[in-house]
């Protein structure tokens, strides 16, 4: 039998295939932004988060908020694989009657904690949950995955100050630092660097990691808080479009569908039977 890290790497590859099929069949979606966070979600959902399909309403469950809601297909693939809802729903993505749309809806999808899509909303919402946990003396944790471009939103920094002020050490943000936004590189539009220093200056304890190394992500996420009485931040260095060579680090693919030839190349690289 193979060891756990390899199994999780295999799981990540399986999720990548699922993402690609879902978006191509569903007729549209954010492929590269979704591929970018695969290992982060695998690390969290398979090794870290204390939540199961049976505990989605348990007040003591860990919370996961995908603030970059446009990468929702990754979350859908993971939740379906873990049995939060039936896998057959993945085949309906983006279609009439489906519970799964281009941004996640917490009223429709079991296991989804927040209806995100507009950027800069996940962190204040997560900070509110973390604050409620403190008020009620509950020891669950709140994880928020944000995009790097999302850090251009002012509400992110309002919440950053708030979380530090209230010592929300039960809150952990993971930034998907792939250095690209819809139109181009962040550094060519409005740079967020030095990203780690910014968050440190706002009172957060910051660590950096390879965002595609599941073991490293798990090690960090199970060693929280990084410092008592401070919110934690993991800057996950990632590759937008990871796993599809011609999409990697190419801004043009942010919201674009591959043509027939491109589809064949991508399927080959991801190990999908092209049918």
């Amino acid at each position, binding site marked *: 039998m193979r060891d756990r890290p390899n199994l999780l790497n295999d799981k990540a590859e399986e999720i990548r295939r699922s993402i690609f099929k879902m978006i191509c069949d569903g007729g549209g979606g954010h492929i590269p932004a979704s591929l970018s966070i695969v290992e982060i979600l695998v690390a969290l959902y398979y090794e870290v988060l204390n939540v199961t399909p049976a505990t989605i309403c348990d007040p003591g469950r860990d919370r996961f908020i995908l603030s970059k809601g446009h990468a929702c297909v990754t979350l859908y693939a993971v939740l379906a694989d873990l049995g939060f809802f039936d896998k057959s729903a993945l085949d309906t993505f983006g279609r009439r009657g489906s519970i799964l749309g281009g941004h996640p809806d*917490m009223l429709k999808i079991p296991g989804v904690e927040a209806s995100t899509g507009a950027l800069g909303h996940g962190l204040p919402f997560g900070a509110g949950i973390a604050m409620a946990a403190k008020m009620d003396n509950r020891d669950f944790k709140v994880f928020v995955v944000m995009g790097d471009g999302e850090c251009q939103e002012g509400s992110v920094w309002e919440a950053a100050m708030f979380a530090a002020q209230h010592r929300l050490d039960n809150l952990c943000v993971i930034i998907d630092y792939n250095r690209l936004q819809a139109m181009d590189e962040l550094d060519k539009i409005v740079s967020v660097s030095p990203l780690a220093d910014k968050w440190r200056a706002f009172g957060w304890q910051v660590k950096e990691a390879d965002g595609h190394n599941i073991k490293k992500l798990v090690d960090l996420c199970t060693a929280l808080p990084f410092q008592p009485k401070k919110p934690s931040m993991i800057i996950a260095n990632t590759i937008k479009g990871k796993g599809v060579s011609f999409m990697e680090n190419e801004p043009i693919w942010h919201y674009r569908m591959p043509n027939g030839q491109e589809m064949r190349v991508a399927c080959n690289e991801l190990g999908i039977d092209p049918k």
Partner: protein
Amino acid sequence: MRNAYIDALYELAGKDERVLALVADNGAIVYDKFRAAYPGRFINFGIAEANMIGVAAGLASCGKVPFTYTIASFLTMRAFEQIRNDVCMQRMNVKLVGIGAGFVYSNLGATHHATIDMSIMRALPGMTVFSPSGPLEARKITKEAARIDGPVYIRLSVGGSPEIYEADYEFETGKGVILRDGPETVDAAIFTTGGIITEVLKAHGELRHMGINARVVNVHTIKPIDKDIIIASAAKTRVVITVEEHSIIGGLGSAVAEVIAENGIAARFKRIGLQGVFAGGYGTYDDMKEMNGLSANAIVSETIDCVNMK
């Protein structure tokens, strides 16, 4: 109105530990009693309205009942997307309490006036919109807001607003209150809401001296609107006037117009309020009413014109 709200909130907090008071750098002194009694349940967010609403939604997702409070214009507009997405789309039990309805912050200028807040709050799916007339109603509405499981917006004038009710009355969400009525026949039905009711009541008295009998209806709930009282009053008088310290676009006047139009009622109809403009001028609150066509005199002359055109 403000003090009535805070007293009611204090009482609610005593009975229900889920109730929280959230503010954005305001409410000095008036919240002292609340803060002293429930220090862990009062949160000042500083000057960060969007974050206050986002955090409130997160708190509500864990069963808390946050009453957020700040100047109405900042609350409803600075944090609008948070109200729409985090609160309404997710059906969170968050209360929004805006202070400084209309142009009551007279000489602070249009940045501090809330004159389209009813329009935008009314447009939000699932939002209940209250506009109390004075202290007694503000108190009843605060208690009612806690009872409602879902988003509520309460539009408050300032402290020191006069009481318009002489006696206690039965409050019901979405049910207008007839404050004045003609002895037998009624020449016009005037629908109004919020602090400006005092001017409407003055106008009612003057009109009566002139031989014009008007029904005055206090519409304390802008959403859901009281269709029955609008239909019944319009059918009775055929002259319908709305008075609001707010833009005539999207607020009370629009809500009443929708009911009239959708029910096939033929009535002479006039919306008194800001005619699609920001409130102009500086001075006292009374000065502002005069300069912006919302004094009792202005309401009298508009009503006479409408009645005579009949």
